[in-house]
């Protein structure tokens, strides 16, 4: 299983996959935008401002999902000493960070017409800001230490990701644990989903488009990291 992530095997697959994922992403995004901006109904309370949900919620979900994946793989890096995992986590971070920023900015824009303020130190917003800081620290640890001491960069970034994992359930359950401006989640896996299907469908399509975009960025970044290794390999031939 671990050999599946071997750079030698994946390079060819990645090159082919990139084009397919880009085409799929573009098609799903266009469909999602039409659904989100034109076909989906307005909300009886929030009117058309509810459409911000179609970019805000998928961005928040994916940034949280990516960070959880990075943290889980970081355990793998420290326990199994698998260096391919560190390439994967490093390649996942940029898209996770950008999705985190998108969630914060669009949330702020949505807050103005809904709550009357651009920003509040509400538990959900604050924990999402903390997640962005963890992403930033993770990427900075690579930026600062990669050239000087790669092993230190791998270890430090892994510790940051594992420590940041504490924040993930806080983001998820903050709306249940504390009284916040955010409403409790409307889309649930284990409980009933309270959102109407006419809004759930565009939300699902936009989430798929965002997931495909993060996959595309991951593949490109992973390819770049493999090339860096191969460039060093050419010097040693």
């Amino acid at each position, binding site marked *: 299983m671990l050999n599946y992530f071997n750079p*030698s095997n994946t390079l060819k697959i990645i090159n082919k996959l990139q084009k397919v994922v880009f085409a799929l992403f573009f098609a799903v995004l266009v469909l999602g935008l039409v659904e989100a901006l034109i076909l989906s109904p307005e909300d009886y309370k929030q009117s058309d401002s509810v459409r*911000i949900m179609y*970019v805000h919620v998928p961005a928040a979900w994916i940034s949280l999902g990516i960070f959880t994946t990075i943290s889980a793989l970081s355990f793998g890096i420290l326990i199994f000493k698998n260096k391919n995992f560190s390439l994967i986590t490093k390649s996942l971070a940029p898209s996770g960070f950008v999705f985190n920023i998108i969630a914060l900015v669009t949330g702020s*824009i949505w807050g103005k017409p809904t709550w009357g303020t651009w920003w509040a130190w509400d538990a959900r917003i604050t924990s999402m800001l903390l997640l962005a800081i963890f992403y930033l620290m993770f990427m900075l640890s690579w930026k600062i230490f990669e050239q000087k001491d790669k092993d230190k960069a791998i270890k430090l970034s892994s510790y940051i990701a594992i420590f940041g994992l504490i924040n993930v359930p806080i983001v998820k359950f903050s709306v249940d644990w504390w009284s916040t401006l955010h409403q409790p989640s409307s889309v649930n896996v284990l409980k009933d989903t309270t959102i109407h299907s006419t809004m759930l469908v565009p939300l699902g399509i936009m989430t798929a488009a965002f997931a495909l975009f993060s996959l595309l960025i991951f593949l490109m970044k992973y390819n770049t990291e493999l090339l860096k290794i191969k460039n060093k390999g050419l010097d040693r*031939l």
Partner: protein
Amino acid sequence: MIYEILNMNGYGVYVWSSFVFTLVSFSILYSVIKIQLNKELKVFENKFKNLEAEKAEIAKKQNTYKGILVKTSISKI
């Protein structure tokens, strides 16, 4: 019809700015990663061209280098 879509019951500024910010962020991230990828491909191409003939032949036979060479102008030579 178009005015209704743009205005969105007075929420147009908020809705459109959210979507535009998202799409601009996507474009910037894609461009930055694409530039990094092309830069590394360029470095590889230059290094490969400067390799001694014997070493170049060894590299060409290795699967990992074959995958990269397909993406560079070296494969067309």
